[in-house]
């Protein structure tokens, strides 16, 4: 396995700046797993899209739990960059534990400088955040889990 040390250094530098708990990286037979809270993360489960069989340089940061039965998963309505706050440095739209209404904005998905706000669509409480700020999210990628209020 030829692994580029420069590439590894670049990844470590990026990780240092990123807000994450678990990070795993796969390329060929190489696999790097980094965890900030001391737990070895589990493989993403049902809610995440099927990973390509042979992953090229890619990064995926996800919450470590699959949604429960009373949770609704909010997915990306389009491909783009995921932003948790309206502008850099501003507080996020929502945090885990926040109560949301259907029209509450959860995040922004930016596509070629066009900002698309993503509303919750349901009433409830934000229980999980699957994507990391600044990450590329694909169409259909899970973004948030919301425990709905009956």
């Amino acid at each position, binding site marked *: 396995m030829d692994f580029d040390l420069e590439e590894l250094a670049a990844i470590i530098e990026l990780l240092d700046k990123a807000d994450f708990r678990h990070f795993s990286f796969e390329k060929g037979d190489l696999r790097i797993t980094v965890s900030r809270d001391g737990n070895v993360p589990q493989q993403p489960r049902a809610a995440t*899209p*099927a990973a*390509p*069989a*042979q*992953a*090229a*340089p*890619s990064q995926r940061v996800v919450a470590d739990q699959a949604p429960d039965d009373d949770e609704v998963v909010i997915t990306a309505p*389009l*491909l*783009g*960059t995921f932003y948790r706050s309206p502008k850099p440095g501003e507080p996020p739209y929502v945090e885990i534990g926040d109560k949301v209404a259907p029209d509450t904005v959860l995040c922004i998905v930016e*596509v*070629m400088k*066009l900002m698309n706000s993503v509303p919750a669509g349901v009433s409830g409480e934000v229980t999980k955040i699957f994507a990391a700020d600044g990450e*590329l999210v*694909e*169409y*259909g*990628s899970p973004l948030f889990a919301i425990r709905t209020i009956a």
Partner: protein
Amino acid sequence: MTTRPARQRVFVANRGEIALRVVEACDRLGFETVLGVSSADRDTLAARRAGRVVVLGGPHAIGSYLSIPAVLHAAVATGCTAVHPGYGFLAERPDFARECAAHGLTFVGPSPEALTTLGDKLKARELAESLGVPVSAGGYASTVAEAAGLAARVGYPVLIKAAHGGGGRGMKLVTSDAELAEAWAPASAEAEAAFGDGTVFLERYVTDAKHVEVQILGDRHGNRIHLGERECSVQYRYQKLVEEAPCAALPEATRERLHDSALRIARALDYVGLGTVEFLYDLHRDELNFLEVNPRIQVEHPVTEAVTGVDLVREQLLAALGEPLSVRQEEVRITGHAIEARITAQDPHQRLRPSPGTVKRWRPPVGGGLRFDSHVYEGYEFPPFYDALMGKLVAWSHDRAAAATRLDDALAGFEIGGVTTSRDLLRSIIRHGDFRIGSVTTHWLNDRFGELIGDGNE
């Protein structure tokens, strides 16, 4: 010799068999690939083979394969250096080519200027005319009266064509002044609605014509070559079903004129990459008429690869990245004959209506002189959202008759279950006496359709 960076990562902005073809060409060049798919295409063979797959949008092409922002964003965010647009979708869009360049991505195709000129069929016709390339009698008219005058000079039947149509779209055949008067305004309105430009023009309709086309290839160093011609006369509603290389019906002098005409157009456009210059060949008059240029890889490119031995997608990728062509004109040799049959999920007994579904059995033939390009496998759910092409079976042999026999035998041994396909219709075409003697013209399949599917009532 080379200025290209050692590492290339190519974004494949297409689907189906051509996406797989591009991924494999990149693999052989040592280039990484990222494939953009719709959510309905996560399970295609190309998605399994690509280095990375990103979901661009939902099943409908408008939100995925046709979305310039989604494709650009995905290509930039995944660190790609080039974009291969395949055919269809964004392949001929000058605005997309420009956006790629603006974001530091090499667009694998000709310049935006060439795409703009060729996208306007009237401009392309004028360019051809200015270069001494033969075009059908006709031209532009701005009013019905002008159009009628023009039609009187060229003689009915005439075709009304949309300037921004192409590939058979936006065309109307009229046979009299009355029909012309009736069709003129709606043709323009339809062109406006379909292509955003209501410009239409007239051309004499060649009744008995073969469709012939020349493969051109250029690089960024001023080299431009042709790789011979293909014949694609077996068409149903302008959709090609069987293609071959070379065209056996052309006299040698006409063939030279054909190749020379194509090269003149390539030179005038300083053409980079692959292109196909299409002509109609009037059998009775031994006359060529320029149709249009397709500025992209063509579905039927494997027949040219089979008789020249040149990997067209490899040349296209390298040319886009600034490498000189690996073949010179004098090195291009046509060896033997190749015929391609397009296997589609279409029901011949329902006038080729699409017939998507689960492919329960899929056993393509293997053997000497055969090639099969396909993204389908046993168990694949053939989606209803896109074109019906399932695969392209190509047979090569030392001469045309042997290639036709080989293709027919191969089709006979192709086991397909679960989905209704065009396979049996393709066999009837290839076995037909008219096809064997090479007399098929572009309206032949429409005329003989009922006979070919064994339905006396058609």
